[in-house]
């Protein structure tokens, strides 16, 4: 089973490029076959040199079978010159911010489409506060990760301020990355 991308139809004439009908159809299909909802997302990350590594993403599992992106995606991660690194890519911590902004913004578009709200522009500014005492092991009371993350939206749309607020709130409610960041997640690291 695949989510059909062909027909982006809307009785309201609103088009944010999201096929809401297909997504809602997928939700209905889940009721009959809950196992199709079991997904696995994957990446391989290989070390290049120094703090530079490269992540490749191509396959995933879902709808009861192996799936594939339309092509392989590659991301370089490194640290900036200020860390005595080569700056071949953004830091892994920044990737987390990128993921959060991407997930919430996709949600804003989907919810807007479903609610018949035409978007003109959406800009999320994502920032995370970090105290380097943590990762440098200089202060055991400081955590490694972000002490807080902020997302600020600027949205131009055919909607009232209250409707736009509701879009952003609903997007948080249904975001995988927001949930992964705000709730504890079991992480298992092994060697094979």
């Amino acid at each position: 089973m695949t989510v059909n991308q062909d027909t982006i139809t809307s009785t309201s004439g609103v088009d944010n490029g999201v096929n809401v009908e297909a997504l809602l159809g997928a939700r209905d299909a889940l009721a009959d076959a809950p196992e199709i909802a079991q997904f696995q997302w994957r990446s391989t990350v290989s070390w290049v040199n120094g703090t530079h590594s490269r992540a490749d993403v191509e396959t995933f599992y879902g709808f009861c079978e192996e799936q594939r992106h339309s092509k392989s995606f590659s991301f370089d991660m490194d640290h900036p010159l200020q860390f005595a690194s080569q700056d071949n890519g953004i830091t892994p911590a920044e990737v987390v911010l990128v993921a959060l902004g991407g997930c919430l913004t996709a949600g804003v578009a989907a919810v807007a489409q479903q609610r018949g709200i035409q978007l003109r522009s959406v800009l999320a500014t994502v920032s995370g506060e970090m105290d380097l005492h943590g990762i440098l092991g200089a202060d055991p009371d400081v955590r490694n990760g972000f002490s807080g993350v902020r997302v600020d939206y600027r949205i131009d749309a055919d909607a009232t301020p209250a409707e736009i607020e509701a879009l952003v709130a609903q997007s948080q409610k249904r975001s995988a990355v927001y949930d992964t960041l705000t709730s504890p997640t079991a992480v298992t690291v092994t060697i094979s």
Partner: protein
Amino acid sequence: MRHTSAVVVGAGHCGLAMSRCLAARSVDHVVLERGDVAHSWRTRRWDSLRLLTPNWMTRLPGYAYRGDDPDGYLGAPEVARLLADYAAESAAPVVTGTTVTSTRAEAGGYVVRTDRGSWRTRTVVVATGATAVAAVPARLAQGVPAEVVTVTAADYRNPDRLPPGGVLVVGASASGVQIAEELQRSGRPVTLAVGEHVRVPRTYRGRDILWWMDASGLLDERWDQVPDLLRARNLPSMQLVGSPQRTTLDLNALAALGVRLVGRFAGVRDRTAQFAGSLPGVCTLADLKLGRLLDTLDAWADRAGIAAGPPHRFAPTAPPVPAALSARLGDGGIATIVWATGYRPDLSFLEVDVFDRRGAVVHDGGVTASPGLYVLGLPFLRRRKSTLIDGAAADADELAEHLLGHLDALPRRRAG
């Protein structure tokens, strides 16, 4: 084996309302009750609990509130007394002290077995309530250290029964906010774990919020017309308390009392409770939802020409920034956890194939796919008010009518 046309399981407000509606249609029936009438109101409510609905809303088929405090809120013993009086007044055929152990479909009808004999019946109405069992998230409960005392909202009675020390109340719907307030006032430091919730003021523009919801027709919204029924049926209860002072018990009020607000209880690790970082998000959601409710009520008041105080809005919820993300369990930290994480029905006696894969009964407005088997009193069964006492009358009336139609369509059994 005794015979009847209808067995109603449970003599709470729903079962008694159904009995009244069946009697009005001359359907011979029996109401089986494991304890006394209003059993749960006698045994499964904390001491200070009052109804969330004002007295004038305590309406049942053929009954309206006659007391001198229409705007007050009945306590649990008063509800039990009221229902006992109603059962007597209705001459309801209640068989008390009789626990249903199984219900099976058999020969075009049902066999209902109890600990005191069996009944063969052509129809069954399950009215055992939406709140029979406290729903506790097993994954979280497993991780709680043994020395932490845990109690559900159904088992909680009063602060004196709990040990001294910190309390974590999990869940910020009606039960959670009420218990959190009572425990905080008892001198225990309370942490309240807040997930998605429904914020409403007790009064708005000088009238009870339930007056607004009732008068504007919101509570009469039907299950077959609401856009997302699944969501409507899973909505948490409103943050309300029925106090003589008609106080609003929202998160701001609790924070002002000193209750520590944290995000959803999300995990336990190394004897530490972990809370989600989504508290500002769920507060914003609830504030927006409240704003939409008040917009709807104001628009209706305009159209209907309602005389009430001027429209106004409530201060946004102000969660602590940043909210705590963890709390120590035991060891001078949290000594008690109160699970106010909702309730679910207990239909384990129902051995009929009417359940979905998660064990929830499947029904269309109370009518199951098994002919002659009905359920009553579940969330948004036929209307938004289906779980309120005031919701029983209309639902029971319509289902009694359906039940009568089913009986009429069956081949008549020979008498004797």
